């Protein structure tokens, strides 16, 4: 029996078709995975369901009754709760205050503090989470705990349908396990869950059924155990993905362009390595091991306490080197924090791509807008960035396309040394493949690439040499074929005694 039924839902934003006659059915007490590449329309569909936007055409029904929510509040009254990708809690309020926000127990406007605490404890008793106490401020909680608070809020509002938009994207494994336990618990109580995720393994673990979206259309639906990964991916991408990693490893004997010797900085202990032209040098390690700090120190974003960074065998570094000087020296940096320091989201795609190299499209300080557009458009084509035009604001692109814009800027900068920090984090498979290709192409055209990642398969697929970071120390680098996943892991966790 279906709880929700959607038929022929369509939604346009200007010229972009976000949803194109989508059909969708949700059964009572099931976990239904909604799968698709970034920009396939998953989030738009969720927003339509949760009353944040209205569809242009089509109809929805809940328990057979027509349903057309005009606001989130309306959706909430119909028992729908949306748990956002970016969590939507009030950080300055306590756990209890957040859980009962909008439904505070009160008499004539005055709060009943005791009932507040009791009702919170009633909801919380199902989930044992060490961090969560009713009177704790949400800003003090970890991301995982905040997510539990959001789910508790949905339960306190008596939601019967919970929409989760990539709930595990910022969680660690043990938190994912407890989230899954929680979802199974909800399912037992007859609550239906729509689960959006990039991780196929994760979907297999938790979902009962699936629906694939591609380019705003519903492509396929069925029981998750009736379809193979390959078939699912073919449905998502619309074509089989051949070789994801385009490059074979090589032993580069190119000239050393970056040499780091005995580098000491925040979180870094006497790091030494050399980077050659034409190679991709990988750095693996645990989260918090100091990988990002290393890249930042090289690029001049963090202070160096001692040691030397030698570029092109001449320029010695001082304690403070500005990123502007590094860029002039031919170093490019791709931040792991795309929204925070990677892109200017309100600027256009063209502005973002040309930002570090305005000198090629300006004269005496005046921008040659036509030239700028031409430069940007060529990169949009080369990396197949899905944008209406180069004038479009970068923030309106999907995550994968934003990442491509960030990479396009780096390539446009034409640096000799590319410092890439988690270049494929949180983006879809199609974009990943294109980014791998662009990186491999850069290496083939004699640039030096430093590739930091916590995703071992891509390191093994892309790199020529690899070193492992652990607690601020960097292991000696070895050709990739001399590493195994086990030895990488051992190095990553084993340096404790050293």
């Amino acid at each position, binding site marked *: 029996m279906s709880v929700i039924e959607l038929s022929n839902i369509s939604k346009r934003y200007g010229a972009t078709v976000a949803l194109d006659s989508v059909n969708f059915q949700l059964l009572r007490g099931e976990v239904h995975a909604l799968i698709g590449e970034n920009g396939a329309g998953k989030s738009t569909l969720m927003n339509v369901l949760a009353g944040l936007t209205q569809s242009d055409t089509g109809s929805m029904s809940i328990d057979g009754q027509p349903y057309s929510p005009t606001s*989130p*509040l309306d959706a909430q009254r119909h028992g729908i709760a949306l748990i956002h990708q970016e969590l*939507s*809690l*009030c*950080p*300055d*309020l306590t756990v209890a*205050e957040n859980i009962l*926000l*909008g*439904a*505070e127990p009160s008499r004539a*406007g*005055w*709060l009943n*503090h005791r009932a507040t605490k009791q009702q919170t404890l009633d909801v919380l008793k199902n989930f044992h989470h060490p961090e969560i106490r009713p009177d704790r401020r949400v800003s003090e909680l970890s991301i995982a705990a905040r997510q539990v608070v959001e789910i508790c809020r949905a339960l306190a509002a008596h939601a019967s349908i919970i929409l989760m938009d990539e709930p*595990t994207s910022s969680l*660690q*494994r*043990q*938190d*994912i*396990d407890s989230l899954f336990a929680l979802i199974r618990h909800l399912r037992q109580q007859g609550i239906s869950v729509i689960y959006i995720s990039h*991780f*196929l*393994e*994760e*979907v*297999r*673990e938790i979902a009962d059924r699936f629906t694939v979206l591609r380019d705003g259309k519903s492509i396929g639906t069925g029981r998750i155990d009736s379809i193979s*990964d*390959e078939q699912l*991916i073919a449905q998502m991408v619309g074509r089989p*993905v*051949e070789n*994801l*990693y385009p490059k*074979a*490893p090589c032993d580069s004997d190119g000239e050393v362009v970056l040499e780091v010797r005995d580098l000491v900085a925040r979180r870094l202990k006497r790091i030494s390595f050399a980077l050659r032209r034409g190679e991709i040098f990988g750095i*693996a*390690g*645990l*989260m*918090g091991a100091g990988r990002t700090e290393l890249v930042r120190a090289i690029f001049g974003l963090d202070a160096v306490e001692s040691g030397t960074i030698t570029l092109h065998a001449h320029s010695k570094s001082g304690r403070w080197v500005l990123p502007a000087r590094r860029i002039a020296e031919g170093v490019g940096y791709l931040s792991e924090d795309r929204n925070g320091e990677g892109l200017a989201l309100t600027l256009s795609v063209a502005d973002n791509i040309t930002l570090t190299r305005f000198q090629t499209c300006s004269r005496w300080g005046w921008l040659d807008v036509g030239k700028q557009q031409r430069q940007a458009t060529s990169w949009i084509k080369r990396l197949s960035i899905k944008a209406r035009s180069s004038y479009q604001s970068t923030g309106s692109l999907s995550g994968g396309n934003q990442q491509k814009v960030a990479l396009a800027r780096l390539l446009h900068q034409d640096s000799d040394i590319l410092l890439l920090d988690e270049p494929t984090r949180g983006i879809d*498979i199609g974009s990943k493949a294109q980014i791998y290709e662009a990186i491999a192409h850069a290496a083939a055209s004699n640039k030096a690439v430093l590739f930091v990642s916590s*995703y*071992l*398969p891509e390191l*093994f*697929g892309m790199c020529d040499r690899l070193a492992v970071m652990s*607690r601020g120390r960097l292991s000696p680098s070895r050709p990739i*074929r001399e*590493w*195994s*996943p086990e030895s990488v*892991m*051992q190095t*990553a966790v*084993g340096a404790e005694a050293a």
Partner: protein
Amino acid sequence: MGGPTRSPLFGTRPISYRGAGTTGSHTGYDRRDLAAASSLMKATGSIQKEAASKVEKSVKPFLRLWLGWLGPFLGLFLVVAVFTLLIGSPAQYLSVTNLRIVLSQTVIVALGAIGMTIVIISGGIDLSAGSVIALAGVVTALGIERGWPPLIAMLAAVAVGALIGLANGLSITRLRVVPFIATLGMLGIARGLAKWLASEQTVNVPATWVNELAVTFPRPGWIVLAPGVWITLLLAIAIAGVLRNTVFGRHVFALGSNEAAARACGIATDRLKLWIYGIAGLFIGLAGVMQMSRLRQGDPTVAIGAELDIIAAAVIGGASLKGGQGTILGSMVGALIMAALRNGCQQMGWPNYIQEMIIGAIIILAVAIDRLRQKRV
């Protein structure tokens, strides 16, 4: 920490598109191993982090509470201590008489700060406060001059304040103008209105009890402090209680902390804003009455820039212009700090411009300390 042992984590990390039609990497390792290893890397990383943060956590809440609550008091203590030393005669600066002077000087800013604190907690701002104080003062004076009972004249002034606040709320919610601009516009409108009503002159009033509201030496002597001080104190306690113990108060904090979340939780945010600016207007109107009481005339050009003093009081008291944070107690102490500073400078015989510079520096310092507190703790 568990060390690098085989854990149940092994082999369970959901890897996106494992075996995505790839022919396996050239190294010949099974993708599943890679996946497992990645999972362990992430998991162990988190354990490292947690262990580190546990130590911080035990200290955190205590320090935050300590600095958050005592900070403004400490500032007040410092100001008083410095001036006591500078003036060199504690008997004078710390005398009951001087205390009365400081308190009655505080009344206007303190009343405004009660309203402003609510607005700031909700993530808004009200730049029209100074003009509205003048307008309300003029309304009170005109009422009394026309022979209205003083209480009615007072209520009329407070009502005008509330109406202006409501108008602010309407342009913010209906016209979708950001609070900064909406109230900046109202700053001009209310000032013009005051001048128009007063025919660009000061309005002189016959002596009534309204004139006694904020005097330094109230009659009868046993009430010790001016009636205006008592009114401010009672209202401050009342609003502090409302912010802490009512649904309205809770929603004000929620609105300022995360407006989207508040709306998603079914809070009628637009109506809430009307209430917030309306209530703030009430307090600013009352501040206008006190202004008239101190001047003993309605002056349409008075209190220019008073909104900045009021905002400064709230900010020194720990309110965050980003919203979601602030207390009435803090704002009251903030108002006292500014009054004590003014009073001290006057007693030192320092010119006005020195006061202005010191107060400016104090505002920057207070916010800088607050930033430091948020970062470190």
